[in-house]
């Protein structure tokens, strides 16, 4: 048999906590930070009414792109913080062998079961 079944993780196998799972959170964080820095710089230029040094600077690309970075970073952070919390809850449910009725209260676990 070519495909080693031991390598095939079942579809509903609980994910183990691994440092890389925090990666998305860190990516969100760095985008968030960049968004704040770049937006603030653009805003300072705007209120200082400094002369434009680049082509199309009047469109305020730094403020607009800074906002895009900020919103994307924030979304990454929030979604992954929720996912991380759910993952921890689910692991705790499974480790404690929570009865089915009690486990229903844990949204992540019940979602997984469905």
């Amino acid at each position, binding site marked *: *048999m*070519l*495909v*080693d079944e031991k*390598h*095939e*993780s079942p*579809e509903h196998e609980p994910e*183990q906590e*691994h*440092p*890389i799972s925090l*990666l998305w959170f*860190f*990516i969100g*964080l*760095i*985008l968030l*930070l*960049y968004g704040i*820095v*770049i937006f603030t*710089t*653009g805003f300072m*230029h705007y209120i200082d009414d400094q002369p434009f*040094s*680049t*082509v*199309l*600077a009047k*469109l305020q*690309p*730094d403020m607009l*792109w*800074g906002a*895009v*970075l900020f919103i*994307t970073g924030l979304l990454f952070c929030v979604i992954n913080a929720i996912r991380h919390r759910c993952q921890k809850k689910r692991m705790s449910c499974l480790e404690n062998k929570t009865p089915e009725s009690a486990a229903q209260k844990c949204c992540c676990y019940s979602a997984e079961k469905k």
Partner: protein
Amino acid sequence: MLVAHLNFVDWIVIGIYFAFVLGIGFYLKHHTKTGHDFFMAGRKNSSWLAGLAFLSANMGALELLGMSGQAYKYGVLTAHFYLIGAIPAMLFLAIFMMPFYYSNKIHSVPGYLQLRFNEHTRTLNAFAFAVMTLLVSGINLYAMALVLNAFLGWNMNVCMWASSLTVCLYISLGGLTSAIYSEVLQFFLIWFGLFLAFIMGIIDFGSWGAIKAHLSSSYFHLWSNTGHATSNPMLVDWFGIVMGLGFVLSFGYWTTDFLVVQRTFSARDLRSAQMSPVLASFFKMALPFMVVGAGLIALALVNTHQIEALKKPDDALLVLLIRYYPSGLLGLGVTALLAGFMSGQAGNISAFNTVFTYDLYRTHIAKNASDAHYVKVGRIMTIVGILVSVLTAYWAMSMPSIMEYMQALFSIVNAPLFAAILLGMFWKRANGIGAFCGLFCGMLVAASMFLLIKFNAISPAWVAFNPKASPMALAFWQAIWAWSTTLVLTILISLMTKKPDAKKLDGLVYHKNAIKKYKHLHWHKRPAVWAVISLIILVTLNIIYW
């Protein structure tokens, strides 16, 4: 001269990147205890992570700058590198080759050669790969210093040592996990840092159509002007593109180069490993919009006399950054380039330390040492690899034409390897002695052709059937010859020598039940379904830009 000036905010943006990368390296150190963690990233990654790392390992800054420069010179024809030159090979790896790689629990591509053929074939390939990886890493390092020196006026020595020390620190701490982390981060930084230049270019002209109006219509065709080599600026005909780029070089790189394939080995199961290249293929097809688009915008700016003609086509993307990015954004653009350069080096070094430790050190020097010992060797080889890269970079400095060797290296190492692995996976009769001789002779043929042309001992027409063949066309043809040599010799020698033991081939050679179909899963979870969708998009893009 093209020089950008960074201010305080730009330095803050760059500083944040360095702080994050180093911080994560220290964080990962506590999670990297075994060889499995250090060399395989624990084999727990999702298909998204492995897929983005798989793509990013190839998406270095040198590649982005070089390809936008190629687009400035050759137009949309450059997109072949992202379409036929990548997608079929990525999908083939996912559907047909990954079950053999992943299920055999190998640590490296040379490891498959050992299982399928013999120790000699593994050693030959491992040695060639290790040398190639360090050379490529050093040349990349030199290229980075060169770009940063020209673009920002930074000292070349400081650039090389600062980036090397950073990479050395976080790879020796976190191993492959660190490399994957930096690659995924690089993916986001490149899109968020460089895609804006393309958007601003379009806004500057008003529309994509306005840009097209300022360029020759021949710049917007993928195939219609490839009937003959002289009818397109790249001087390559359709056969060279399909066979050289689309088959030999592309399959040789995407299916056998351990630098990229290693990322898929880190996936948590076979399905995730198969999904990784499939997911990556969608992003790969999106890249030409940024890279080729930037080159075309730069050319349109030159044609409308808004900027001077570029002395070096590779400056195309940099020109857009200087033109459109105010402070803060410029720092982000520079950080994206830095991240691209550094994660490229990290990818090379993490592949090198794995191949050296498992395929050379464990096989020939210390067969039965402890796991901790191999991790220690991996960490030491990370430092050694970095030092050799830096030395190679200094060597490259004294030989300005060394950049040409890059493409030649791929045709020498990867093209013959692809032939050997293809026969190994799909032909039961191929044996160890045939593969070893075929691989060795294929490498020898490619290296000889390159050197003979380089020193004018033979005309390019002998290799590429065209006396005026461009270096790129020559690289395509060199790869075709090397691949063919390995293929023919492996077949002939295998037929003339002993059959391999059929019992030992179980799980290593294709048979009708070898490919998993995942019929028990929903259609959207099956790799083959997404591979077909990816192929449809590929065909559509080729028709649109025919």
